């Protein structure tokens, strides 16, 4: 909780500043939008958090979103697949991609950066090839399926505000992810490997399996994200969908306390990180800042967050060392 506190405060401050300058920020419509997008990005950020905690990285998320997001309407609309068949196929593809990454990284000892960078090029290329770069969509059909991304649920006691369905999906996934990370031996092994792979191996842990698993989770959640993004926008351009999303996901995970060196991270932190990313973009519009500056501002805020985190960590280590020294001296 202590680790999450910093970013939570940052999120509240940004919300507060924006709300003071623009009353529409807390309007039901705007909040629903922010929460829906936070949930979609939250899902892919949780995925990449697993990989980052294991000490790896996944740059292919945006392209997996593109592949899955393009294939789903393509299979349903152009090829008449049934909904379960199409979902099963894209799900299998995303899991296979993660497995492929994991095997190359553990068995062939290739660098995660390189493997997933190639993935970034390959999957989008395949998606564009299959669809001939044509925009894919569901039209007015598949209302039930699209409810997953666009649906809203009335909340008792709160008038006007409806809870976006993706939030519930994200919440469910986050709870499962947090459970795995904190309560099971898989999570324990994952953190151990991220901190010190050799020591984990010397303790009898089959490190390869755990690492492969983390890539499978990451790609699968990217696939889930791809499905939801496609259902949300309903007009999927293979050339553009999911561009840079891996960077948003990584940024959210890092903001949420995942060390790029591996070994640490919390799911709650990652979700708050994803929220911060979305709120920042929203604030830029709300505050009337020229949208050309969007990336610069997001970059600066992340950098400040990371620098603060590093300084706080150093201070804590120093304080601990001096305390220890005192104890030893006594």
């Amino acid at each position: 909780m202590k680790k999450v506190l910093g970013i939570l405060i940052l999120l509240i401050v940004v919300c507060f500043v924006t709300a003071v300058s623009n009353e529409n920020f807390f309007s039901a419509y705007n909040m629903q939008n922010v929460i829906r997008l936070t949930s979609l990005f939250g899902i892919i950020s949780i995925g990449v958090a697993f990989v980052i905690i294991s000490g790896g990285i996944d740059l292919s998320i945006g392209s997996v979103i593109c592949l899955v997001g393009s294939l789903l309407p393509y299979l349903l609309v152009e090829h008449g697949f049934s909904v379960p068949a199409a979902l099963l196929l894209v799900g299998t593809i995303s899991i296979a991609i993660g497995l492929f990454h994991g095997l190359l990284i553990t068995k062939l000892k290739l660098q995660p950066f390189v493997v997933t960078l190639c993935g970034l090029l390959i999957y989008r290329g395949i998606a564009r090839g299959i669809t001939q770069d044509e925009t894919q969509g569901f039209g007015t059909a598949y209302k039930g399926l699209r409810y997953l991304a666009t649906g809203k649920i009335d909340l008792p006691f709160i008038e006007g505000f409806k809870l976006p369905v993706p939030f519930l999906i994200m919440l469910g996934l986050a709870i499962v992810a947090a459970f795995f990370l904190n309560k099971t031996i898989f999570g324990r092994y994952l953190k151990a490997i991220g901190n010190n792979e050799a020591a984990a191996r010397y303790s009898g842990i089959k490190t390869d399996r755990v690492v492969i698993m983390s890539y499978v989770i990451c790609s699968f959640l990217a696939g889930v994200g791809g499905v939801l993004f496609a259902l949300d926008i309903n007009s999927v351009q293979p050339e553009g969908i999911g561009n840079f999303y891996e960077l948003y996901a990584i940024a959210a995970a890092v903001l949420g306390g995942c060390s790029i060196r591996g070994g640490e991270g919390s799911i709650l932190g990652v979700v708050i990180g994803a929220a911060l990313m979305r709120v920042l973009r929203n604030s830029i519009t709300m505050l009337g800042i020229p949208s050309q500056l969007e990336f610069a501002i997001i970059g600066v805020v992340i950098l400040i967050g990371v620098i603060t985190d590093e300084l706080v960590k150093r201070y804590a280590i120093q304080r601990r060392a001096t305390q220890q020294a005192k104890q030893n001296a006594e």
Partner: protein
Amino acid sequence: MSNSNLTHSTPLLEVQNITKQFPGVKALNRVSLTLNKGEVLAVIGENGAGKSTLMKILAGVQTPDSGTLLINGNKVPILNVEEALNHGIALIHQELNLSENLDIAANIYLGREPTTCGIINQKQTYIESEKHLKQVGLKLSPHTLVGNLTVGQQQMVEIAKALSIKARILIMDEPTSSLSLHESEALFSVIRELKAQGVSIIYISHRLGEVNELADRVVVLRDGENAGDLDRDSISHDQMVQMMVGRAVSQFFPHTSHEPGEVVLEVKHLRTPANPKHQISFALKRNEIVGISGLVGAGRTELMQVLFGIDALRSGSISVNGQQIHIQSSKDAIKAGLALVPEDRKLQGLILEMAVRENMSLASVSRDQGPLGIINFLKERNLTAEMISALNIKTPNDRQIVQFLSGGNQQKVVLGKWLAMHPAVLLLDEPTRGVDVGAKEEIYHLMVELASKGMAILFVSSDLEEILGISDRVLVMHEGQLTGELSREDMSEEAIMQLATGQTHKTVVT
């Protein structure tokens, strides 16, 4: 030689009250020493006594928290590497720092190549290098690639390098740890030669025989503090050991011999990937503590790693309790009843960033798991509490990050992790490296206690005192080969060194 009396009034180098604190451990506490011109000063002490830290401070590699340095009686500020070199202080690390892909001359002048208009003056480096090679008695062309040299020759290149910067103080950190007897002899004669030329040498070694032979004076460190000095006349093996461990040797090593039980671990014709030329066969019995001795690079760690499934064996067989096992990963080894406390605690033994509790349960957590792989937190807590009290681990609580524990307590956490698995065979690789004297003694007592309860213990150690002190039997390795086995009655520093340097008894001429 003639001027040595003159300079004795002002020592060449004086170190006063150096203190250095690392997270969790005070490496040096008000340590002082003096060094005279043309003197060989031996600095000895157990692993973790602070010798290496002190030497790194002298060479400017590390900065002390407090303390004073005097050179020729003048106070100088704390040095960085460049300033230390300017004062003529050169450190030859235990692990040699040469670039194997470059030739001797390029290594000697690395980082300070003489240049004309920015172009390296190659010719000059070769001429100068040749001169310095002669000084150390190395009959090699400076064009030779360093990768083609033996470890002993590489060491001489390091010394030549130090001479080329006109070093007045040469610090050697365990220079013979990977040398053959012959190479060691060559090194000693170079040291004597340098001494005659007025170079002062600080010599760090575990080998008390060498110290006896070479040193003009001995400074003993224990747990980061001065434990006493010995002049040339009072240097003796027993005196040195007593100062190092702080009490008589017989009290420090709790050896009690047990009647060995049946064979637990049997290794037959084992070939390791590191040394595939040699076959290793031996057996380990219940209640036995067997030491593996040898020089650095003798293949001891590699053997342990194959036994524990870290590396795959090339051929041969490993049996536990009479049953041949196929070890393909450490998990298989653990299943068969083996446990390994690895050589490098920080890299292989512990997850430094994690808590005591999480480290302690890392091996047993999968055995104790509940449905869905849920960690049994209650068992984990109980196990940790049990180990903390059984092993006397000094930690504020079980959530303490292990990084902040002292070396000895860290090692006990690794031991606890494996004791939780109730192994039949406990493999220990340098179990007391970087551990303070108190914890060291506790580890010895623990080993003896475990053996008396029926465990078979196989331990690798570079510390001869330790090997002699607690082994029931010792296996000696040399360049990947098992060169001999000595029973407790036949064990001696000399007998082990002969086997460790590849000499059989017959070829030794006294």
